[in-house]
């Protein structure tokens, strides 16, 4: 009786197993969940030269700033003539991203635009470059120089600007909670070190700091821990979140503890629907823009298409948004 029952159940199990294997195979362990090609209208008539194909590798669409980057890449590509974009999102998995670049090399794309998760992408970028495919690196750096162009805002300028602004706001004296980005990513280091250098020697002290890995959820946990360790009202004067989601999450953590009025909140990124909204809504006291470089990336790709030699580095500027200037486009920082 028992044997029969096992056999009956296992038939269902085999079918489910087969279904699941097909399902998992098509998922491919966390690789592309967005793949789209875009073509400008009227292009097919002019198809003597094939469209310029760009392989665009995004490390993690799950972050709003990167989602904005994706949407800007797509809109800029659509506005230009004769560009096909293949977008692949690695969902924050470095190995998956390496696989995507290898796929682009195999597909012999005309150009690669990559925003790498971290420096572990250096080798595969170098491979693409050696295979004769121009590579534009966006936002996070890879090591060495085996790529065509690096486009990024200067996070060090932003870090120093934040430091200067904080010193002004606190009149040179006060306590700061610093919520840093993912320690293995260059922007995290570049937004933190100049900030700390700027406040060095002033009466401003960092009383709590943590790595929130660029995630709002982690930032909230770390802020709660900070609030627990520093329960006296007024023991925290300012929270510096290395990106806006962190600063916003810290605000909500403080609000839930009834302490949001005691401190200032400053973030970085200034996305239209996030940081800027937050400044308007009175959640953040300031945010510094970190432009995503999508427009410049497509312009550079067009340069390459025309056979011109693009510059090795393109550095983007930043803007400061506060409640006073948020509706007038912020203030440019040199």
């Amino acid at each position, binding site marked *: 009786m028992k044997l029969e029952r096992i056999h009956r159940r296992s038939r269902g199990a085999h079918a*489910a197993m087969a279904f699941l294997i097909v399902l998992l195979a098509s998922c491919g362990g966390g690789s592309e969940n*967005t793949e789209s090609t875009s073509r400008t209208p009227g292009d097919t008539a002019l198809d003597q030269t094939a469209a310029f194909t760009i392989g665009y590798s995004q490390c993690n669409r*799950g972050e709003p700033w990167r989602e904005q980057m994706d949407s800007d890449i797509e809109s800029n590509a659509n506005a230009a003539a004769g560009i096909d974009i293949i977008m692949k999102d690695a*969902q924050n998995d470095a190995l998956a991203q390496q696989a995507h670049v290898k796929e682009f090399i195999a597909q012999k794309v005309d150009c690669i635009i990559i925003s790498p998760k971290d420096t572990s992408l250096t080798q595969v970028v170098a491979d693409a470059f050696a295979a004769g495919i121009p590579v534009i690196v966006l936002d996070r750096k890879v090591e060495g120089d085996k790529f065509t162009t690096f486009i990024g805002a200067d996070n060090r300028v932003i870090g120093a600007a934040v430091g200067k602004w904080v010193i002004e706001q606190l009149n040179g004296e006060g306590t700061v909670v610093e919520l840093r980005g993912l320690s293995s990513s260059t922007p995290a280091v570049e937004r933190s070190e100049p900030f700390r250098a700027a406040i060095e020697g002033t009466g401003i002290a960092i009383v709590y700091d943590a790595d929130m890995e660029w995630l709002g959820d982690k930032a*909230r946990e770390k802020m709660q*821990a900070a609030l627990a*360790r520093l329960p006296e009202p007024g023991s925290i004067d300012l929270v510096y979140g290395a990106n806006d989601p962190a600063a*916003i999450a810290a605000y909500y953590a403080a609000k839930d503890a009834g302490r949001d009025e005691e401190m200032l909140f400053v973030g970085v990124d200034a996305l239209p629907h*996030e940081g800027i909204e937050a400044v308007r*809504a009175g959640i953040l006291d300031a945010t510094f823009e970190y432009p995503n470089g999508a427009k410049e990336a497509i312009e550079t790709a067009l340069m390459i298409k025309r056979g011109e030699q693009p510059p090795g580095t393109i550095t983007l500027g930043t803007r400061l948004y506060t409640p006073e200037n948020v509706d007038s486009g912020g203030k440019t920082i040199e």
Partner: protein
Amino acid sequence: MVKVGESRLKHLLPTREVAFALAALGLVLILGVAYNARGAFFAAGTHADAFWAIAGFGILACGMTIVILTGGIDLSVGSVAALCGVLFALMTMKNDWPPVLAVAAAVGAGAACGLVNGILVAALRLQPFIATLAMMAFARGLAKSDMVSEGAKIQRMPAPQVVEWFNTRVDILGAKVSIGVFIFLGCFALTLFLLQALRFGRHIYAIGDNAEAARLSGVPVRKTLIIAYTLCGLFAGIAGVLFTAMARQGDPDSGIGYELTAIAMVVVGGTSLMGGRGGVTLTLLGALTIGYLKKILDINRVDTAEQLMITGGIIVLAVLLQSLRRRS
């Protein structure tokens, strides 16, 4: 395990299993006293925060308890919570649905996923691991699909009123206790009632103990299992709404690994993965144990990496102690 004719009241009194779960929680609390991070552990706010952090996972664990008691498992709760949370965000932040309708729809979606799980397991006889693994993938895909979120986070600043309502804090003895905690305790009470006061609960235990014997003695196995998985999905929906409210945003990438936390809470509490023994009181204690451990590690600034390793070690320790107790 409930035998016919046995007093129901007996199950509400502390048993050896409850005593062990209390001891485990006690050990963690002593750890907190020892490593109190310059008094932070004694602050009322720290405890309110600990409960707040546990609330969502605890709700998942309540549903998980019911399913595990039948000898099954539900791996989809994390994805279903994410899906329901995103739907809730879609309705309240991108559109302006009436709050009660939005909550009901989101929770209903969770129950619907649970119902599908139940049908796959009970009627189509798929193994729970496989059926719920498939739902885990499906729900995640649906949450990230173009008709729901397009893979992007959904938020509005400032957050809508209904979202802020879920974040209201009630002052109790100087601690600001979140509404989420009360929702969790309500789910706990409901689960306790279902498992201990209703015939449904006796059926659940009977199926977990020996499904064939239960069927032969007249237990409606198929119906009971379908209800069990539907309830688990329903709780995942409630948890999803709460998680979204707490984060003030709908994140289609949230909830990853939450099913493992829920399972850990059930297991550390003392309920057997084989089914038939345990209960939701144990799960509550397990939830507190794991939740307080995380809070203690957080206030002592232990890095995420070390926290994960320590939590893994604690789970193994807890299960080992329980198995030793059973053998004795």
